[in-house]
């Protein structure tokens, strides 16, 4: 038991270290900006006096390390500074959007995870049949499609006929059922993109296990194919499958940005893209940090779960 706890603590420590380095990277990348923030804000109205005034106001006259520590201290307490374009505190902009993006991601996961695992199991059960080949090829094709293509195809087929709205305009007061209805098309788009990935990886994980001698043994003693897959192969494939699920949830984070733009969904991705367009550096920094933390967190979770399910991995380090 102490082994497990120390492993988890070690991994968490590594995760925190990665996040610290990330925040440093995100902060420093802005330092590399040609000129500085003050000149960027003022643009053509930059005179030496106004630049000096703004630099003072933003605290740019202080050394980088102090500013980094101040910024990080604020971030830890949920204060990301002020948006340059909107002149409002960023935390106020972010809070409702995080909820929306999280809702969309969880909604997608709730559909995509069971669907892809069932499909993956079915496909490995009928391995090398026409069903397997066609599903596999379709999945490969689905992976290759850009998210916005899938999104617009969804709009063309399901929104024009009036079944579902093409714009997912939700806010905190929208009742849950309405939310589920309004967000159906964006969630379906993300599901299509992610399911193909997860299904192929689930299939690969199961087929890897199926190559082991104890499966051969089960087959020789006359177990049914469905029983071999569900009772013998699945328990040993759970670790890679959980890994696949976590990795794909992390992948969803980038998919969400494009889908939010297609469906005009008031989420974090839209905020970030707007930030990039107006070169609103603090907003981009804040959103990048949040997306990156979610990504690191999910990868960490995948790592811990797969180590827990396979004790051999713990002995290695």
């Amino acid at each position, binding site marked *: 038991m102490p082994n497990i706890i120390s492993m988890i603590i070690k991994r968490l420590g590594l995760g925190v270290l990665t996040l610290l380095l990330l925040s440093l990277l995100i902060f420093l990348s802005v330092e590399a900006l040609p000129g500085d923030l003050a000149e960027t804000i003022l643009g053509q109205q930059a005179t030496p006096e106004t630049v000096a005034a703004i630099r003072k106001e933003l605290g740019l006259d202080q050394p980088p390390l102090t500013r980094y520590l101040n910024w990080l201290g604020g971030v830890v307490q949920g204060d990301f500074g002020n948006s340059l374009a909107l002149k409002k505190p960023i935390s106020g902009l972010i809070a409702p959007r995080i909820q929306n993006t999280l809702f969309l991601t969880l909604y997608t996961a709730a559909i995509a995870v069971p669907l892809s695992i069932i499909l993956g199991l079915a496909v490995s059960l009928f391995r090398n049949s026409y069903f397997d080949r066609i599903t596999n090829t379709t999945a490969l094709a689905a992976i290759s499609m*850009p998210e916005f293509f899938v999104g617009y195809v969804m709009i063309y087929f399901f929104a024009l006929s009036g079944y579902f709205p093409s714009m997912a305009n939700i806010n905190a007061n929208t009742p849950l059922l309405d939310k589920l209805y309004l967000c159906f098309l964006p969630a379906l788009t993300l599901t299509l993109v992610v399911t193909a990935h997860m299904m192929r990886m689930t299939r690969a994980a199961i087929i890897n296990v199926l190559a082991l001698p104890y499966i051969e043994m089960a087959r020789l003693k006359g177990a049914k194919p469905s029983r071999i897959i569900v009772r013998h192969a699945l328990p040993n494939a759970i670790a890679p499958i959980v890994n696949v699920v976590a990795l794909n949830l992390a992948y969803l984070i980038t998919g969400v940005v494009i889908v939010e733009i297609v469906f005009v969904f008031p989420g974090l991705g839209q905020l970030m893209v707007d930030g990039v367009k107006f070169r609103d550096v603090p907003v981009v920094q804040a959103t990048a940090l949040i997306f990156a933390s979610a990504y690191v967190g999910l990868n960490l979770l995948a790592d811990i779960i797969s180590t827990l399910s396979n004790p051999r991995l713990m002995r290695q380090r």
Partner: protein
Amino acid sequence: MIYLQTLLGVLVFTVVGLAAGWVFREMLVLITSRNTGKFLRTAPLTASFGMLVITIYIFCAVFAPLIAPYGEAEILSGGFEPWGSTYILGTDNLGRDVFTRLIYGARNTVGIAFLITALAFLFGTVLGIFAALKGGVIDQVMSRLIDVLMAIPSLIFSLLMLTIFGTSVFSLVIVIATIDSTRVFRIARAVALSIVQLDYVEAAKLRGESTSYLIRKEILPNAMAPLAAEFGLRFCFVFLMISALSFLGLGLQPPTADWGSMVRDNADLISFGDITPLIPAGAIALLTIAVNFVVDWLLHRASGLKD
């Protein structure tokens, strides 16, 4: 009704595509040498279809000015002309011919994606093999640095970088090539690690060959097969990434014709039941599907037909 029609359309497209792929493969077998022909015969229909599509795209990219009826950024009429005999696929929001821009898009989007992938491979493989060859502290430092860079989702990282360096073609190429080279580094290092331990590399080291000789003449030739398949996959990633960035308005800038921005410019049409914006998006999808089919075949061959 519309669903049935579409389903039928997709089915017909698949059958015709696969048939064309078969014809294309047989043609290739006929015109190439015996050994290449033998190799090509192992391609499944999906991969043949992929090769056909890739050939068509390359043809469009190379001969764009000859095929396209109008100039790339030529403004010909009022916005959003419908499809017809003068403008095959209508005109876009500014009155430029959509078909012409689609052809030029093959040149710009695919060309830049290829350039970025090539650059990423140049940096990634050289650094990756270098790290594997040197080992020790150098390897550790480089690998940990790459790990941190890879901890940021690539789309998010490129958005951050493009905010800083602005949205020019040059910064786009450099930013995405850098981000992608981290992924190539990992693969190249892993592949090189197993080669570095072999006796002939050891022998070359003892002969006193230089590092660059070791990388170029000893390791790279033997790492070629897995890296080639990886090149196809990375090309797809890069291609989808710059299309996504262009779609967000942060990739290739107007008036350069580019498929991602064509989707964004004409996106409003979709609410009126006009499928024009789906065509450039479909062009992106078709090429990535084609490349993936070919890579899938090559990987399947390389893995020794495992299952």
